[in-house]
């Protein structure tokens, strides 16, 4: 059986691969969307922090003997802490200015972080093996799915849903949404908005770190893995609607089948990114 001249089996496996890659996009763009919603900052450093998360996983194993599961918890925490430091010491001073300065600042931070990792580890990738519990693969009939990839999809879905739940259904989320609408008014009601902003940035960045740790066994850990991804993630956020959380998740999972550059794909068209650019344009215009 064939659809559009592609064997069904190939199409299904392609879809599933897209779903795996989409999981990374979903977590990254979720963080970006949350940050943009409250801070009005396009966090260019997101890719670099994602890379940082992956590197922490690798460093934890290499230098401290910490396994995958420990790092899955510790990595995002450290990255989030790093984000909080960035917000407290630098980003904070730019809120009153044009939003473009936030973009430029985080661009500078990207260069520094990537440069530091590149000067220490070079551009070649560091191998990171899949944790024992998730090694092996399951035969789904139409394709063989590595267990780890299934776990990636599951973990990312869980995190996205939890985030969505917190933002939409809890009091904390209500404050957050109110802060996005009108920070001054929320502050007048006695809510510590600057603290909320700091924590939001930390959380968004921690999501990137989490995605990084998850990605470590799938993609080779290299200083450039972030910049390869960040543009696609921007596209996702814009298509989903800047600051819209559900939009990001849905677009990332649905819209990005086979866009990933490292994925082994059946349908290889030069138009992939052209299409992406067009989508991005259309949704904005």
């Amino acid at each position, binding site marked *: 059986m064939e659809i559009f001249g592609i064997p069904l089996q190939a199409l299904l496996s392609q879809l599933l691969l897209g779903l795996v890659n989409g999981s990374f996009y979903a977590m990254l763009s979720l963080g970006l969307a949350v940050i943009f919603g409250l801070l009005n900052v*396009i966090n260019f450093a997101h890719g670099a922090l994602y890379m940082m998360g992956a590197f922490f996983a690798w460093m934890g194993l290499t230098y401290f003997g910490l396994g995958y599961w420990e790092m899955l918890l510790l990595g995002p925490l450290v990255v989030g802490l790093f984000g909080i430091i960035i917000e407290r010491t*630098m980003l904070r*001073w*730019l809120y009153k*200015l*044009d*939003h*473009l*300065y936030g*973009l*430029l*600042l985080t*661009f*500078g*931070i*990207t*260069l*520094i*972080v*990537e*440069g*530091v990792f*590149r*000067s220490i580890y070079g551009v070649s990738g560091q191998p990171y093996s899949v944790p024992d519990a998730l090694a092996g693969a399951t035969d789904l009939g139409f394709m063989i799915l590595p267990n780890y990839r299934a776990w990636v999809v599951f973990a990312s879905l869980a995190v996205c849903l939890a985030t969505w739940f917190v933002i939409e259904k809890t009091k904390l989320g209500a404050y957050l949404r109110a802060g996005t609408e009108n920070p001054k008014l929320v502050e007048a009601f006695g809510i510590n908005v600057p603290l909320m902003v700091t924590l939001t940035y930390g959380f968004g960045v921690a999501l990137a770190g989490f995605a990084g740790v998850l990605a470590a066994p799938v993609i080779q850990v290299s200083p450039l893995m972030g*910049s390869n991804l960040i*543009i696609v993630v*921007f*596209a996702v956020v*814009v298509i989903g609607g*800047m600051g819209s959380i559900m939009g990001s998740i849905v677009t990332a999972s649905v819209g990005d089948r086979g866009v990933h550059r490292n994925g082994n794909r059946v349908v290889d068209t*030069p138009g*992939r*990114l*052209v299409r*992406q*650019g067009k989508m*991005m*344009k259309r949704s*904005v*215009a």
Partner: protein
Amino acid sequence: MNKKIAYSILLVALLVAPFGMYPVLLMKLLCFALFACAFNLLLGFTGLLSFGHAAFFGGAGYVAGYAIQTLGLSFEVSIVLGVVAAALIGLLMGLLAVRRQGIYFTMITLALAQMFYFVCLQAPITGGEDGLQGLPRGKLFGLLDLSNDLSMYYVVLALAVAGFALIVRTVHSPFGQVLKAIKENEPRAISLGYDVDKYKLLAFVLSAALAGLAGAVKTTALGLASLTDVEWTMSGLVILMTLVGGLGTISGPIVGAVLVIGLENRLGDIGEWLANTTSVEWFRTLGDSVSIVIGFIFVICVLLFRRGIVGEAVAWLAKKPIRKPS
């Protein structure tokens, strides 16, 4: 008056410079200075931050390189083709981008430039990862042989000065005044009856064409068109040059470009010197970590010197009370 004297001195210095410095580096400096000035026309005077100027710079470079190498066209025709190509890409990109404002404008230019990057990566005529190498420079009007670095330098200088003069003229023209009005207060400019989008588009295309001129000249001067010139980091670099030098100042981008390119080329030497004087061995690796240093400059500029070097200098001079020499 003082400005005129300063520019005359600069011009004379540039005319004699190739006798004291390596002409190829000077040509590179000139091209990037023009690129940054073209970018400043858009960001500094119209208030539009484009994150896609690498597409014009590198795109024009590819077109000029292809014309001169594969099609065997002459130098001047290749440059003109490069500029026209950049203007066309600018027109297409501008048509879509100027309809949005602020961050959205930036994101659209980034997306379209990235699209162009992947076209360059995959198109059969651009040489993919290798780029176009060993490009001939050809002859100017079939007479002047440009393979000589010195004659090439003066041609580049003439083109850069012409481009710069065009930018200065534009800024001081009624058109430039409208652009400034749009930057300061767009709704007001609309209420005064200006077709703001049209003005923005024109500024965008002009900036793209001049960036294309810089790119085409750089490609022919260095004999190389590569993917680095169309990558988004190049767009970031030109923003940095403009920011370091001073947004919205005429001469700022030149200062910024000289500083950034000079730093890129000389960082290794600076590191050696620092290592020798302070005996901290780490400085020896500085030459390999250009991007860290550039990132630091970016962060410091954004946080502390948003007016840039020239902007701060102008503000400082304006603040200083004028004293008569006693």
